[in-house]
Structure formats: structure tokens, C-alpha cells
């Protein structure tokens, strides 16, 4: 039996310490998904708790057809989407993009007049990630922070692999274009 299998068995037999281990092992993944999707600090914590409660309640149904981390991330994504829908913060046209999605590096009506320091780049990037469509945000996060592949991300978001790859490409292009259009990052990005 795998380590994950043993852990699940221990939890199902009522081992609280094993459940705490599962939480510790997966809380970074859950926070990556939930924090990228939800802005309110208290709601982030509440939804993250709800994720693990649901994991616990449904663990007996987990059939190891996917990785445990994939299953947990699916629950986190679904709960966060549900929250956003309840708050009317996301709609069916979630992937509708602004007109600048295929824009040029520097738009004509926006001068890159803000000089930024290297230390600001992370903050600016975070802001621009938060401005992406919600699915783009999650894809970028799972790909870079959790080193997941297209297939695994596709399972979590219920999207075909090719769509995940296409969204990732569009997300990176949007980020690059928006950063270059708003800030003078050329000097420090060379």
C-alpha cells in the first residue's frame, strides 16, 4: 500500500493525527487555489476549512482513481467557484476577456510612466494575476507553484488538456502585455 493509501486508511479508522498530517501536507495547495480565487481574508480561511471538512467527510468515497492532491484541489476549486457564484463575483462568461487580451506590448492610450523597482515586480505581478479571469489564475498557480501538468490541471478544472495549455499561453501573454503597458519594466527585465 502506498503512503497515501496508509494515510487515508488511518484517517478512516479515526486517527486524528493522520488527518492533521493530511491537512499539513495539502494546506499549501489548498491555499494556492483558494487564495487566488477569493480576496476576502476571512472567507479564504473559512473556505479552506470547508475544503478539508469535505475531504474528511468524503474520504471513504475516494477511490484512488486520481492523485489525492488532485482530488483535494478539485474540491477546493469547486467550493471556491461556488462561493464566487453565490457572491455573484463570477458568471458563466468567466472567460470573457478585456479587449486588450491580444493587445500590443504598449497600448497607445496608456503610457508606461511608472518606474518600478525590482522589489515591486512580485507585487505588481500578483496584482495583475488577480486581474486575470479566474480560471487563468488557477491554471497559472497550479502550473508554477504546484508544478502540475496540463492533464492534472485539466482534471481539477474539468477542462481538456489542450484548453489548459491554450489558457496558460493566453494568461502569460496577458500578464506580460499588461505589465509592459503599465510600467517601465524594460530596464529591469533585461
Amino acid at each position, binding site marked *: 500500500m502506498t503512503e497515501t493509501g496508509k494515510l487515508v486508511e488511518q*484517517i*478512516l479508522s*479515526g486517527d*486524528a493525527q493522520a*488527518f*492533521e498530517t493530511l*491537512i*499539513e501536507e495539502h*494546506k*499549501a495547495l*489548498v*491555499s*494556492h487555489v483558494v*487564495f*487566488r480565487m477569493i480576496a476576502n481574508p476571512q472567507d*479564504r*480561511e473559512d473556505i*479552506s*476549512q470547508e475544503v*478539508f*471538512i*469535505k475531504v*474528511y*467527510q*468524503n*474520504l*471513504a*468515497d*475516494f477511490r484512488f482513481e486520481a492523485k489525492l492532491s488532485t482530488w483535494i484541489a*478539485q*474540491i477546493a476549486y*469547486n467550493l471556491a*467557484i*461556488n462561493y464566487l*457564484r453565490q457572491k455573484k463575483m463570477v458568471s*458563466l*462568461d*468567466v*472567460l470573457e476577456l478585456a479587449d486588450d487580451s491580444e493587445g500590443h506590448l504598449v497600448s497607445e492610450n496608456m503610457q508606461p510612466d511608472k518606474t518600478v523597482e525590482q522589489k515591486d*515586480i*512580485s507585487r505588481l*505581478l*500578483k496584482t495583475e494575476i488577480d486581474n486575470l479571469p479566474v480560471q487563468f489564475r488557477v491554471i*497559472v498557480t497550479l502550473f*508554477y*507553484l504546484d508544478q502540475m501538468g496540463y492533464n492534472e490541471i485539466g482534471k481539477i478544472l*474539468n477542462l481538456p488538456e489542450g484548453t489548459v495549455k491554450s489558457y496558460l*499561453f493566453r494568461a*502569460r*501573454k496577458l*500578464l*506580460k502585455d499588461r*505589465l*509592459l503597458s503599465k510600467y517601465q519594466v524594460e530596464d529591469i*527585465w*533585461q
Partner: protein
Amino acid sequence: MAINHWSEEQIQEFLDGESSISKSLFEDHLKTCPVCRKSFQYYQNLYRGLKQDPKFQLSANFAQALVSGFLNLHQPQPDSNFPISSSEVWELRLCWEP
């Protein structure tokens, strides 16, 4: 065949290690083409930034508090109706699809 410029998709694929273009051909062009070199460097830095830990943090005692608060009340109940089964989670997701 004359090479114009690498497309942004080609640059991203190269950085992802998924390019069908040979490394030497790609890099030789970068050496001689300032336009592609600049675009490549932008993406290279973007990739670096995306890998940085955003330091999302749940409360320090998140796991312990959750376990002590929750497990005292519940045990795994695969057949229970409370409050949603995993199959319902997937059904909900289907409803959420655009």
C-alpha cells in the same frame, strides 16, 4: 528559408521545454535578433516571477484547530447525508460549467 521572428507561442513553448525547434537554431536566432531576444527575456523574467512563492498563509494553527474542533463532532460516514457526497461535488461542478 529566412527566419523572421519567433512567435510568442514559440517562445513560450521553448521556455516550457516543449518546442519542436532545435535549441541551437532557437538560440542562434536570439543571438542575432534583438527583437526576439527582448521578447524572450520578458518571458524569461515573467516565468521567474510566476515561480515565486506568493506567501499565501493560512493561520498558524490551521490544521490543529480544524482537527480539534471538527473531529470531536464527526467521524467519516460514507453513507451519511451530511452535507454533500463526493458524487454531488462532481454534479455541482457540472452545473458550474459555462
